[in-house]
């Protein structure tokens, strides 16, 4: 570990955003103004499940892109385990942070096993074929996500839930310290939503995997996450435990609609949209 950046391991947050400012060069289609983070600061602690929620235009996906260095901030710093993200080579970053996308790309002509093995690239980018260690790691990842049986099947033949697990396996094969998920349950049936949540909780409890997830499903986020970040127009509206963040007045002002907040059987808040009765 580089002495210049050494900090006591137990105390350093895994992810630190400090005053990160970013703006897209041109407004996205359909938007009037360019989106911008004026100056974003937050941390993600080791071993926690951290959720980012907010309306669609709040910048959730842009945040993920900044973290994985697809985008570069104009100002500010993003640190991973104390080291600036910009200092790391792309493959080195990929060994620390693994991203699980919303859905599999189409067309995708490979099998599940081939997909999962792709996650081993950051560990030896120069190698032509994967070696035995890579195959072991891939199998372990598939075992953890219960996708070993699906290994020889083409990804496109799987159901939505199975595909999601395969993508998760690929991310796990990277052996990251941080797992990042972009809308992990967006296209899934209720059953697979529950499955995915259980899987993530299991990874977090048994392996101490730090998880950062972005979701528009407030209740999933409430159930699963240790802390939440409510993002509104590129700024932190509130960060903290679910019960503090999912507060009726705050939600109504950020999302611009009427909601009610109750308590679920587990004690976590449950947000319900109050539909207009016309």
């Amino acid at each position, binding site marked *: 570990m580089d002495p210049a950046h050494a900090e006591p391991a137990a105390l350093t947050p895994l992810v630190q955003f400090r005053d990160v400012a970013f703006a897209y060069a041109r407004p996205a289609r359909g938007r009037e103004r360019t989106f911008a983070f004026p100056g974003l600061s937050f941390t993600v602690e080791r071993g926690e499940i951290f959720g980012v929620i907010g309306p669609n235009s709040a910048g959730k996906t842009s945040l993920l*892109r900044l973290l994985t260095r697809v985008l570069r901030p104009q100002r500010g710093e993003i640190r991973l385990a104390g080291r600036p993200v910009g200092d790391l080579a792309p493959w*080195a970053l990929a060994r620390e942070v693994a991203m699980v*996308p919303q859905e599999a790309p189409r*067309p995708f002509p*490979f099998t599940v096993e081939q997909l999962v093995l*792709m996650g081993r690239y950051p560990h030896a980018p120069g190698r032509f074929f994967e070696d035995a260690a890579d195959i072991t790691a891939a199998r372990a990842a598939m075992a953890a996500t219960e996708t070993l049986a699906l290994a020889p099947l083409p990804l496109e033949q799987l159901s939505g839930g199975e595909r999601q697990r395969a993508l998760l396996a690929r991310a796990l094969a990277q052996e990251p310290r941080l797992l990042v998920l972009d809308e992990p349950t967006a296209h899934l049936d209720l059953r697979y939503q529950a499955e995915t949540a259980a899987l993530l909780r299991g990874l977090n409890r048994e392996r101490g995997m730090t998880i950062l997830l972005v979701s528009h499903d407030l209740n999933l986020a409430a159930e699963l996450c240790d802390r939440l970040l409510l993002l509104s127009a590129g700024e932190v509206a509130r960060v903290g435990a679910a019960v503090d963040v999912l507060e009726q007045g705050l939600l109504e002002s950020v999302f611009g609609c009427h909601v009610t907040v109750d308590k679920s059987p587990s004690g976590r808040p449950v947000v319900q949209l109050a539909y207009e009765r016309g």
Partner: protein
Amino acid sequence: MTDARRLARALAALSLVLLAVGVTALFVGSAELSPSAVARALAGRAEASSVEAIVTLSLRLPRVAAAVLAGAALAVAGVGFQALTRNPLAEPSVLGVSSGAAFGVVLAQILGLSSGIVAALGAAVFAFAGALLAATIVYLVATAPGGLAVQTLLLTGVIVGIFFSAAITVIISVVDFNRLTGVIHWLLGNLGPIPAASLALFAVLAGAGVWLILKSARELNLLALGEEASRQLGVDAERLKRRVFVAAALLTGTVVAFTGPIGFVGLIVPHVLRRLVGQDNRFLVPTAALAGGAFLLAADTLARNVVAPAELSVGVITAFCGAPFFVWILRTRSRPL
């Protein structure tokens, strides 16, 4: 069985096929040499100025080598280009590069160059100039601020190709009748015996192009995840796209320079191979090199024997194979394009 071993097995099998086709090509031809005469020539035991020596060593052998090189180059360019654009119907000639190169050569044929060896190499230089021009235009147009946009690449390639084809038509329309036939026949593909120096250059350039794409094979697999996802895995997507584009353009331009424009090889061979060895580019690239060489050599052997002593251009054979094949692909694809 490990991947490496599986690949070795596939390559061994294809090498046998290539060898078989190569031997057939050497023994069959319109000069009607007996097998023993050919064998004598190959063993070096025929008199240097005998018909069998001249035909076998100065005519058939270089032509076989040219066909194998061209076939390998086109097939590998096809694999690379299809992986780059994530479109299995992408064919090297769709890059616009082969039309640009053909335009260069046709221009050279009409304008004229200085004599001698330069004439043979000179046409190649014009071909490369044309290929470079076309590739540069396509690259510049398809490069948005964010990087090389592969979907724009396809469209731009088609348009540039059409443009240069039109330019060729203009040239053809002003050339006199006697030269016209020659130029038109060249445009159908001209696999002929190439002098040793040119052949060596051909081999070096084709080898460089194949090497570049082979090096990129694993990363090309990752590109199937989507550019952003592959970047998040640590792939330098911009460098990869540039490298593969340049390699595909180099391979295509080289083939046109030395053997005229030949179509469909870059489409047929990768597709057949995908059904045999799967989608992994690390398998496809090396097997395409061997299979492409064997395929074009077989097509050329057919082209020069089926109406002997007259010849068909090899492009005719590959097109006649290619068109129905294209239809078959479209009909048997289970998922929409």
